[in-house]
């Protein structure tokens, strides 16, 4: 099972995707300044599936996710070594404009972050950004319906997006992210600031969303991964050599990871021996 690179470091067995891959993410190294945050992880995101990322704190789940639409470019010291293939383009290629990448690979953040605009304007934001020529209202309504928040807000589209509850705000952010029909939706612990009821609504929504989009989901909650993810990647962190470098330990179908993990570290993690 275990293969070793010539530096003697553990490298996970390659996961063979069963369907078409929309985002083929090969991380060699990710650095913040001199700090090596993530190494040697190959994580393909499959089309119309939910790919879950689990692992202990500091293992680089969010770093990998945020690398997938170049959000980390906003951090000065960030350096990415590797490639992320998206429709035969490497999104880290020299000619690639990160701004355009982010229009196709949308993101939902840990804390709900609606703009201080009306609910309608929040959802229409991306459409206007892209100079959408069609029926804007129709697209807004469609996004709100898909994000399962239409019934909550249909009578108050002119109200502030910030007037909603936390769970509603997060679904509004999802509606905003999907209004422009992105290919991939990156979700960085989207439920960690939500109560259980709102969490369930967002989880059900994720399962529905994969019909139209491919979803990459970082979660700190293993039960959430079992409920939502089709494929799960487990990232660990190697502190034995004094560093805090995260790496992929194992990636497979979710039921395989949780019922029959191959790596000892994975077994310990899903049994809750560390977190």
């Amino acid at each position: 099972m275990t293969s070793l690179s010539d530096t003697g470091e553990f490298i996970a067995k390659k996961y063979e995707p069963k369907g078409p891959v929309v985002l083929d993410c090969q991380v060699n190294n990710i650095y913040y300044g001199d700090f090596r945050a993530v190494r040697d992880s190959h994580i393909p995101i499959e089309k119309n599936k939910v790919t879950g990322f689990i692992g202990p704190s500091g293992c680089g789940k969010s770093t990998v996710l945020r690398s997938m639409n170049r959000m980390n470019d906003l951090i000065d010291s960030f350096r990415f070594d590797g490639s992320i293939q998206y429709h035969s383009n490497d999104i880290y290629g020299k000619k690639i404009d990160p701004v355009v990448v982010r229009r196709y690979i949308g993101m939902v953040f840990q804390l709900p972050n609606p703009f201080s605009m009306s609910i309608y304007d929040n959802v229409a934001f991306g459409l206007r950004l892209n100079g959408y020529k069609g029926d804007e209202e129709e697209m807004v309504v469609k996004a709100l319906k898909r994000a399962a928040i239409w019934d909550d807000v249909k009578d108050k589209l002119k109200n502030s997006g910030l007037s909603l509850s936390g769970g509603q705000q997060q679904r509004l952010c999802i509606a905003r992210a999907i209004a422009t029909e992105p290919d991939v939706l990156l979700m960085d612990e989207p439920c960690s600031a939500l109560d259980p009821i709102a969490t369930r609504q967002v989880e059900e929504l994720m399962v529905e969303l994969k019909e139209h989009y491919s979803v990459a989901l970082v979660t700190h909650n293993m039960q959430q991964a079992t409920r939502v993810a089709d494929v799960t990647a487990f990232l660990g962190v190697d502190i034995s050599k004094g560093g805090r470098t995260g790496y992929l330990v194992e990636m497979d179908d979710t039921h395989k990871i949780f019922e029959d993990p191959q790596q000892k570290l994975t077994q310990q993690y899903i049994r809750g021996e560390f977190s």
Partner: protein
Amino acid sequence: MSEIIQSSAPVIQYPSLEKNSLDIREFKNIFLTIMVWGIAIMASIPLFSVISMLIIEGGARIDFAALTEIPPAGFEMGGGFGNAIIGTLVMVGIASLISIPFGIMAALHLAILDPNSKVATVSRFLAKVLTGFPSILAGIFVYGVIVITTGTYSAWAGGVALAVLMLPTVTLAAEEAMKQVPQRMKDAAFGMGCTRTQVIMKVVLPTGLPGILTGVILAVAGAAGESAPLLFTALFSNYYMAELAEPTASLSILIYNFSGMPFDNQIELAWSASLVLVVLVLLFNILARLVGRSKFKE
């Protein structure tokens, strides 16, 4: 029977819960309350006496003539300060046109583009120093730079002098307002595929707008009441302005000039002009409070 009950039941001595004004704590409480109220009232006496004087003395002469006619000369009766109202508005307008764009762009640099660079640190420090800058020095600076080089006192020079005073206030207020825009909103905009310009235009400026406007309007109100920087930049004029490159009247200089004159008519006009100036500044302040309320609050 009743005697037995009395002797068997334990008699509990409850403390008195009634107010006792002879108690030392109660006395301290009353004393300090009176002190606080008394000092607060004393502190507001100057404000209210000035305002009541303005309303009584200035209100007596306010009429259409006072607001529109030009100042009287010497022993003339009647007259007004219409030219000074126009002059003040024009010079504050020039100052706003200069200081608002420069101030907001400087604030963008300080708050968003490069907050930790050396240039930003130095210019932030200098802006803070400039807020405490004696306003008469702004006048001297502009006198040297504009009045001497163009050879004439002018509304331009007055406007620029006021702009020098407004610039740091606008910059620091706008920077503060932009910093208040939460990072997660900027993240959201970047995540939607905004360029940096779009993040600024579509999220940072609209979200920070109430705060920016409040700072701008307060700076305008402050500039409208300034007299020192206008003394040797705009000087004064007894006539309506015909062009921007000539000495121009302003309310504050008119008050300064007329209040020292030995003629009752001019002194009355100085009172009225003061009232107009205070009302103008008050209106700006109320406006600042109104726009300071964000439309989309949490």
